[in-house]
């Protein structure tokens, strides 16, 4: 029976997963000015590692950890040759990496099913006797748990001296180096962290969809993530998540819309064309995105807000 709420919730779950990708790109691009045009590669690595391990009946916590570690490690390894150079070199290398990684999983059947892909990946949390809605809600809880964790990590980083260094590197590498920051190490570290977060998103994605195949990881995924960050607002974590919601909502609504508006265009074509136009428009007229980067001193960060709240909760619990 029709249940549009499920479709909406499904979109919410997707937005959560892509929100994590968007956060990780925000960390790389928004804070550090690293042009990672190969996001999809790390997403794919995470998904595949999770798929392989989940089929071997490892628990979610283990394979999610391994997935992010492997993705982070590959990210680190491949970015090393390009990180010392200008950002366009990283961009080109990463685009190429995305294509090559796809080639590898496609051709090495022993590794991950090759062109067949892998299916039958069990969901992370299995509770017997739940309805579809309840199961979806469990998934959403899991995904949003991870999203919140990533958000907190990103916020903590942004509001720390580490984040300050990243911003310095973003604005002026020479300045950062002249003031004692090992630019290369910071970049590599951030790239690895961003890739690890993407890997975690990939793990969530694999267990949510239940299948992985090389055809899921096309370069357009990367472009959507870029779209999310640029639309939402680089160097603003809330903006990055918001961007994920907007883009996912945009994709879904264009699929729904085409049933009621008799457009002579293919919906997927239209979707891509509009997305591309929107990106160009945003880059042109509002490069800072919908939510601007906030210029606040470090000491007015998240923790200052959280601490009283935490205290209040503590006293409430004790009383």
């Amino acid at each position, binding site marked *: 029976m029709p249940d549009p709420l499920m479709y909406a919730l499904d979109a919410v779950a997707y937005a959560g997963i892509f929100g994590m990708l968007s956060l990780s790109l925000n960390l790389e691009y928004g804070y550090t000015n690293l042009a990672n045009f190969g996001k999809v590669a790390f997403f794919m690595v995470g998904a595949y590692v999770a798929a392989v391990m989940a089929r071997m009946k490892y628990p979610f916590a283990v394979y999610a950890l391994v997935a992010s570690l492997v993705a982070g490690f590959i990210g680190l390894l491949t970015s090393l040759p390009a990180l010392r150079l200008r950002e366009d070199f990283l961009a080109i290398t990463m685009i190429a990496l995305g294509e090559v990684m796809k080639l590898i999983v496609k051709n090495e059947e022993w590794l991950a099913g090759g062109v067949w892909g892998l299916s039958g990946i069990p969901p992370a949390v299995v509770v017997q006797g739940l309805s579809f809605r309840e199961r979806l809600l469990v998934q959403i809880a899991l995904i949003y748990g991870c999203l919140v964790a990533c958000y907190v*990590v990103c916020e*903590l*980083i942004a509001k*720390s*001296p*580490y*984040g*300050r*260094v990243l*911003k*310095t590197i973003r*604005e*002026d590498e*020479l*300045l*950062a*180096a*002249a*003031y*004692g*920051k*090992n*630019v290369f190490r910071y970049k590599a*570290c951030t790239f690895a*962290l961003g890739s690890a977060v993407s890997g975690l998103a990939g793990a969530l994605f694999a267990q949510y969809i239940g299948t992985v195949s090389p055809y899921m990881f096309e370069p357009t995924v990367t472009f959507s993530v870029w779209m999310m960050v640029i639309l939402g607002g680089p*160097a603003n974590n809330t903006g990055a998540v918001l961007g994920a919601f907007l883009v996912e909502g945009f994709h879904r609504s264009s699929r729904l819309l085409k049933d009621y508006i008799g457009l002579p265009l293919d919906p997927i074509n239209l979707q891509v064309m509009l997305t591309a136009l929107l990106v160009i428009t945003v880059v042109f007229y509002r490069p800072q995105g919908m939510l601007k*980067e906030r*210029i*606040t*001193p*470090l*000491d007015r960060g998240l*923790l200052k807000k959280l601490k009283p709240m935490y205290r209040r909760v503590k006293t409430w619990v004790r009383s």
Partner: protein
Amino acid sequence: MGSILNTDNLVKRFGGLTAVDKVTLNVEEESIVGLIGPNGSGKTTLFNVLTGVYRPDAGKIFFRRERIDGLQPHQVYIKGLVRTFQTPKIIQKMTVLDNVMLAVRNPGESLLAALFRRRRWMGFENRLRERALEILRFLGLDKHAYTPASELSGGQMKLLEIARALISEPKMMLLDEPTAGVNPVLAYTIFDRVEELRKRFGITFFIIEHRIELLMKYVDKVYVMHQGKLIAEGGPNDVMNNPDVVKVYLGSV
């Protein structure tokens, strides 16, 4: 007093162009040394070589009797050699205070510390903030401490750069045109502060400057550079009367 920075036949080439040509110089501790020369004579390149931005093609650099040529910029910084830039490098999207504080090596600058051991660096951060505010007060910028750095005027940006260089407690500072684009009154203030800093903290200064008349009032020694070579050195008066220098300046005008 010994020398703090000296170089030995330093060479830096770009393609066919020799930007720094066999430069040998010597800066005494706790002195203020000027570096002048016409545009394109290689002054900023020399600074870049000294601070590790460019690797020299030949020659040696000693800072406090230690070889520093071939080190990365951040390693040079750790040795206590700090520089400012010709066009002030200000992070527009940070507050003035953060712009100053970024100069200090902070235990919170590692990824793990940022995530887990926050309490450890927060104390450091608080102390650092006090110190930064103090330095801003000294340079008259304390009113703007919490405003975004993009709202400062050009002269204030220069001061901010000096503040940033100061907070790291350097042994020696390389100032690249500290008064470029600054009104004359502020320019004198800047040099007064430099003088004061030298006296108070014993910092050595090496300054590129175009306002020669201003520079000469403060420096102990001047180097003149032309087409990558040092063509003269000595006290302010000696240099100004050196025929080579006069020729260079008249020739270039």
